[in-house]
Structure formats: structure tokens, C-alpha cells
């Protein structure tokens, strides 16, 4: 099975471009994916279109991991 995946960054269309790629393994919530030079965590996966032949079409919502690090730094500063 080939997984054709649409990646969208939650709340970040202006800052981060979205992504499209084919994979041999399906995206899994909690896994990381690299789009360009940025690293993201997958937070939701759902079908985008019905499967066809040996292709499955999925939509994954991701969030930037860098943002999490920024948030952690901010929390540290507040503490």
C-alpha cells in the first residue's frame, strides 16, 4: 500500500507551508514528520479520499515541534 498524505499545520498556514508526499507507512498520531527544514508532530489522521487500487489518501494535521520548544522556554522563564 502507498499512502498519499496531505499535511496541514494547525493554525500555521501563514508561517508554515502545508505538505504532500507519498509514504510506504501510514502517518501515526505522535510520530514526527519533516516538511522542508521544519519538524512537526502528527496530531490527527483521517481519510481524505476513498482508497483506489493500492493507494490510500490521508489527511494529517500536524503541529510544529519548534513551537512546543518555544512554549517550554516561555514557561521556564515565567517560573
Amino acid at each position: 500500500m502507498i499512502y498519499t498524505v496531505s499535511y496541514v499545520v494547525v493554525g500555521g498556514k501563514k508561517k508554515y507551508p502545508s505538505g504532500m508526499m507519498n509514504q510506504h507507512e501510514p502517518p501515526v498520531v505522535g510520530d514526527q514528520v519533516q516538511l522542508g527544514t521544519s519538524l512537526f508532530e502528527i496530531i490527527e489522521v483521517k481519510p481524505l479520499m476513498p482508497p483506489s487500487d493500492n493507494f490510500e489518501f490521508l489527511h494529517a494535521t500536524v503541529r510544529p515541534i519548534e513551537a512546543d520548544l518555544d512554549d517550554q522556554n516561555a514557561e521556564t522563564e515565567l517560573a
Partner: protein
Amino acid sequence: MSEVKELLKQVSLFRGLNDDQLDQVAQITQSESYAADDTVFEQDTAGDKMYIIQSGQVEVRVKDHAGMLNAVLIMGEGQIFGEMALLDHGTRSASVRALKPGATVYTISGDDFRTLCQQDTAIGYVMMRNLALDLSFKIRHQNSFS
């Protein structure tokens, strides 16, 4: 030939084609390599070939009202781009550049694509159906923003 055929089997545009048909498609492909930051093509320029990403990632950028290029999409292995110019003969709707560490693509010229589709209408039907499905995928992707 076997390398490109293996790639074609993993690209949704070519799903449903048998081995002989994939051989015919493989014969009209050309390999191109781009270093990081190399421009593949620029928005508003003429273009008559489509691209299949074998390895690496490319960045799709669109001009805003001020003429500044904004990155809107990252495309990776197995994705196709530049196919709109084959269908509508219009200019490129976006600019595309290779990202680090570079990208290798296969291209199919519009002339070769149309000739193959006309010579073998079974291939033509499958490819046109798959092109429509690929555009459907891209529209659904775009709709997910709203």
C-alpha cells in the same frame, strides 16, 4: 528503465497501468537533478512538462499582491507538479525550487504525453482519470484550510 518503472508504480498518477503500459510511459520520461535552492521553474513563465519527484523535497511558492514569493506547499517523493500546464497550456501558476539536500525528478513533456495518450487510448483514459483524481486530492487538501 527499471528504476523509473519502480517509481511510476508508486505514483498515484500511474495507478491502474499494467507493466507494458508502464514501460511505454517510462520511455518518455527524462531524469533531472536539482541542487538545494535551484529553481525548477518560475511563476508566470511558459511550461509544457510535468514533474514526478523521485527523491528530495521541493517548495511551491506563489507571489502575493506585492510580488513577494510565499511558500505555500512542500512536496515530497511520489508527488507530481507542473501538470496544470499540460492540461490548460497556461503559464506556471507557481514557482518551484528544490530544498536541501536537493531533488531528483523525472519529467514528461506535454508533446510526448499527448502523443502517448492519443496513440494508446487505454493509457490515455487511465492517465486522464488519474490526473482528475490527483487534482481532486489537491482541491480537498486546499479545502482543509477552510
